[in-house]
């Protein structure tokens, strides 16, 4: 059987109707599935200039092409819509169990349009979709909502639930969508889109089988891949991690990174294993990106020793089809909570100069329950603390709350205010850029964001790739889309011809060049990221390297296609380009999405691991745009690139007759 269903569900909340739409096989060839499928449809169906929080915006929940095919690491689902936070293309990626559940309901994606006049939730099983009243659920946090719905929607098997919490209901522009007890599709503010549609939850309990065209070959490939993950490699205690970071900092050269080193760490500790090491290495931002590892020294970072976090872990948490299990379920206040991830810990420790691990757990739990992005929440509170230090925000603005660096209790209180949208929290709930514009006095200069979205806790001054990708991505401010270290780990040169092999050792200065080689690896990262987003692959799996995680071989075995790695990379480039075309159609000045200069080393830090490091961002962006086939000055995809990728011109989405629109879209030739 095919790994895709060839069918999506449209839910119009204004009319309360659900309709199926068949998807031609050529669409899967061209856009794979997952985020590619969403991009190919939303580009055509969201009208230009649509209000992100209005009825014209379309919110997509999509499942990866490889999900359920017998592959590993392929349980990621993606949400996509026009972002209310950045005004650009918006998407978010999440693990858990929703991705297979979408396919088990018989669909590759669920596309929600319109706005309901009362809270509703969508339930789908083998008998089809149904919208039900969610008035009684409105106001509940994400975990209460999920537990209640699992009881309400009774059946043989436990349903998978994606829902919003109070943050999404209150249209916080940094709200996300939760799944499986607090796993978040956090970025791009898509929780607010769901809240604006009054859609509280999606409850999926279908049980159609999934599969692939060549199950035996899939199994053979997966067994070989699993062996790279499940070896129990003995690791030192958590106390050695900051030493590892310090060694990396002091080395005069940069060594090529290999996923075989990071996978055992993720398996033992999860992402939190890297927090203390990253501070020492210079990867984690300190004091709203103005400090360094000397300011958040080892005696302070001892609070986030990964062994302290591991001591609270009850059991490992695996997303669907994941052999790694980087997640964890921890005991917390008499109950259970997801183990805080690297980003959350970094945002509420080094970034704010805080040293209270209990507060990190409390904030993580509060944000997961509220359905709010921990990266943006941390980045916004860091801005608020600096604004307090500089006198931009005063006690009269905070109702007496003092926002000193390192005050975990104040950070927790601010989180509560942001969730409730009370006092200053009402402003901060929409991110640092909007708050900075409200308070003025030059505070925009230390709102560390790109296009309005707070950037994640990886310092571009250590790896300029982060600066480039956060600035050129159609979803600005993202850290998962590429950097130089990812290129080392993906090992694309082992499968894709004409890509440069990363050197085993290179001088540290060479990272900061803005040359053709850097453009080539950045574009390869982008194309591969979109490729694996189409496949539904987890980034941590991809870090094994494509010679160990057989993503190209899986794709061919699962679908029965005979595409080359280069052709799959071209599909990734197509997805990236159509996302960029979405932004072009919105009339966005693409160069305005660049990250805040401070994070790019303008001015450079005077102390610490990244002292005197600056990123030549403008040159890097020009090089990237040129290499991928977009205009080097404006970032607009060139007509020749659009023609080469076979992206069809926009269909007329303003026609009154929906049926005609659907047919017109399906006639597009998505040929390679």
């Amino acid at each position, binding site marked *: 059987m095919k790994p895709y269903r060839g069918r999506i569900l449209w839910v119009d909340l204004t009319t309360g109707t659900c309709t199926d739409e068949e998807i031609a096989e050529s669409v899967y060839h061209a856009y794979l599935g997952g985020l590619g499928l969403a991009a190919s449809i939303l580009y055509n169906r969201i009208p230009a200039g649509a209000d992100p929080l209005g009825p014209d915006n379309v919110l997509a929940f999509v499942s990866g092409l490889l999900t359920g095919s017998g592959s*590993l690491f392929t349980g990621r689902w993606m949400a996509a819509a026009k972002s209310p936070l950045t005004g650009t293309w918006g998407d978010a990626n999440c693990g858990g169990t929703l991705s297979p559940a979408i396919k088990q309901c018989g669909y590759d994606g669920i596309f929600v349009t319109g706005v309901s006049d009362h809270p509703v939730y969508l339930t789908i099983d083998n008998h089809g979709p149904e919208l039900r009243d969610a008035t009684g659920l409105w106001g509940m946090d994400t975990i209460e909502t999920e537990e209640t719905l699992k009881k309400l929607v009774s059946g*043989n*098997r*436990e349903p998978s639930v994606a829902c919003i919490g109070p943050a999404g209901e209150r249209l916080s522009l940094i709200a996300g969508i939760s799944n499986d007890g607090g796993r978040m599709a956090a970025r791009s503010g898509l929780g607010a889109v769901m809240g604006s549609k009054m859609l509280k939850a999606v409850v999926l309990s279908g*049980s159609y089988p999934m599969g692939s065209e060549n199950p035996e070959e899939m*199994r053979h490939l997966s*067994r070989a891949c699993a062996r790279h*993950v499940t070896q*129990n490699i003995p690791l030192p205690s958590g106390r050695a991690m900051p030493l590892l970071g310090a060694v990396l900092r002091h080395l005069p050269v940069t060594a090529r990174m290999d996923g075989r080193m990071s996978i055992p760490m993720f398996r033992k500790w999860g992402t939190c294993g890297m927090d203390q090491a990253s501070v020492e290495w210079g990867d984690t931002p300190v004091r709203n990106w103005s400090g360094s590892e000397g300011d958040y020294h080892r005696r302070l970072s001892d609070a986030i020793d990964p062994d302290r976090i591991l001591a609270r872990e009850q059991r490992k948490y695996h997303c*669907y089809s994941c052999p790694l299990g980087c997640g964890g379920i921890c005991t917390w206040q008499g109950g259970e909570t997801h183990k805080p991830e690297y980003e959350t810990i970094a945002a509420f420790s080094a970034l704010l100069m805080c040293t209270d691990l209990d507060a990190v757990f409390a904030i993580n739990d509060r944000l997961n329950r509220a359905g709010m992005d921990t990266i943006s929440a941390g980045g916004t509170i860091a801005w608020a603390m600096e604004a307090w230090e500089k006198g931009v925000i005063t006690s009269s603005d905070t109702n007496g709350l003092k926002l000193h660096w390192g005050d975990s209790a104040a950070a927790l209180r601010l989180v509560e205010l942001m969730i409730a949208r009370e006092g200053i929290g009402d402003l901060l709930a929409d991110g640092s850029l909007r708050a900075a514009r409200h308070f003025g006095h030059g505070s925009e200069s230390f709102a560390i964001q790109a296009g309005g979205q707070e950037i994640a806790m990886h310092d571009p001054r250590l790896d300029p790739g982060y600066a480039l990708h956060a600035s050129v991505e159609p979803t600005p401010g993202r850290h998962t889309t590429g950097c130089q270290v990812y290129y080392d780990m993906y090992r694309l040169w082992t499968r894709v011809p004409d890509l440069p092999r990363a050197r085993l050792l290179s001088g540290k200065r060479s990272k900061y060049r803005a040359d053709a080689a850097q453009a080539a690896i950045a574009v390869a990262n982008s194309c591969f990221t979109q490729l694996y987003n189409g496949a539904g692959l987890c980034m941590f799996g991809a870090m094994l390297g494509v010679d160990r995680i057989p993503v190209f071989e899986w794709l061919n075995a699962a679908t029965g296609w005979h595409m080359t790695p280069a052709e799959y990379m071209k599909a990734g480039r197509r997805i990236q380009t159509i996302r960029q075309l979405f932004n072009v159609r919105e009339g966005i000045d693409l160069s305005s999405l660049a990250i805040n200069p401070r994070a790019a080393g303008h001015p450079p830090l005077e102390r610490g691991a990244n002292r005197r490091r600056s990123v030549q961002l403008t040159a890097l962006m020009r090089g990237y745009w040129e290499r991928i086939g977009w205009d080097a000055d404006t970032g607009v995809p060139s007509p020749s690139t659009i023609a080469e990728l076979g992206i069809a011109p926009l269909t007329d989405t303003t026609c009154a007759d929906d049926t005609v629109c659907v047919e017109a879209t399906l006639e597009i030739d998505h040929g390679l």
Partner: protein
Amino acid sequence: MAYNIDEKCIGCGLCVRVCPVTAIRGQLHAGHTIDAATCIECGACGRVCPVSAIQNSTGSMCVHLNRKDWPQPDVDDTLCVSCIACIQACPVGCLGLGRTDLRDHHARPILKIPDRCIGCGFCHGACPVGAITMKQQSWAALPARH
């Protein structure tokens, strides 16, 4: 493709009770029908039918099998990677996570509710690494219900 009930049906209703997706409709003592769009081809109806009135999706007649002879999943812990694909695939929710493996701290799946298992083999088909085999076993040999 889906399963189909022919005219031999005596309307006993056993298939209605065992179907995990309520795809079968019919009055007691009258001919039953399977909704093709809902059917997941798990085969439970075919195994339970006392008069072998049910054909599978390829048109072959299903053979009645005593419930104690239905195959059940057996997980090879040395191959299992704890990826929960089997638990997600199970249409009756009879699998769950068992105890954490002390060697690597990752929990392995177990047959938590054996008497709910319909022997469909979806877990076997879903396992990416082939750690699950479907084995016939007698009720007496099964572990107590958790």
